[in-house]
């Protein structure tokens, strides 16, 4: 069997947790990729996927806490998790700087996620060897 080339992945998640299976499939995929010796360049949250970066998600105690599980994985592996700013603002996900800029009553971005523009996704497509999308199932 031929050796499997080592890849550097950009993962894009467009489905929300507790609406779609996308964040959970993406996490199990990302863990398997790291275990196999590949690297994950970045995880980009787009569209409804930005809800994964909410600090206020509170599932029932017998359901998986996907934002917390993702936050731990990103921290443990020093992988940037970036929510698209345009998607995030439309859907009510903001950090402290957006809170100030738009005079909002609170911020709700979960650490270590950050908020940035689509340029982060473009850069991912240019620098990584594989881009995989995890969409909502519909």
């Amino acid at each position: 069997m031929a050796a499997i080339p080592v890849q550097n992945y950009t993962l894009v998640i467009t489905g929300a947790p507790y609406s779609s299976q996308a964040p959970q499939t993406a996490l199990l995929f990302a863990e398997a990729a790291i275990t196999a010796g590949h690297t994950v360049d970045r995880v980009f949250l787009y569209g409804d996927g930005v809800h994964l970066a909410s600090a206020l998600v509170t599932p029932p105690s017998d359901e998986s806490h996907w934002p917390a599980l993702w936050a731990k994985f990103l921290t443990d592996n020093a992988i940037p998790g970036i929510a698209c700013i345009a998607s995030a603002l439309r859907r009510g996900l903001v950090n402290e700087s957006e809170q100030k800029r738009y005079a909002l009553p609170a911020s709700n971005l979960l650490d270590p996620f950050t908020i940035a523009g689509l340029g982060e996704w473009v850069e991912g497509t240019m620098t990584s060897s594989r881009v995989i999308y995890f969409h909502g199932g519909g």
Partner: protein
Amino acid sequence: MSKSTLIVIDQPPYGAWAGREALDMAFSLAAFDQRVSLLFMGAGVNWLRKSQETSEIEQKSVEKNLSAAPVFGVEKLYADAAACDQYSLFPESMIAGVVITESSSELIRQHSHTAFAG
């Protein structure tokens, strides 16, 4: 027609949450002593398959929730016959207590209120 609700689930389990939340609607009606039944149609009939083992996708099995439906006072679980055929869902592969319906359209008319999973 006495007041009764039909909750319709036409989306498969696990890929989306709308079905789970529709099930909660049915349980909630039953908890308030309202008449309610569930209809599974389209890809939604896959809720009814036996032997769902969900530990590897880290979700709760919907099979357990569904088997509790009669206990909580949900009157009937219906499955659309054509959809069962489409997904090779035969009586022996189905959880207990499901009534197969040849006309989902008639069933909808027999209930005063119908709500689809979102």
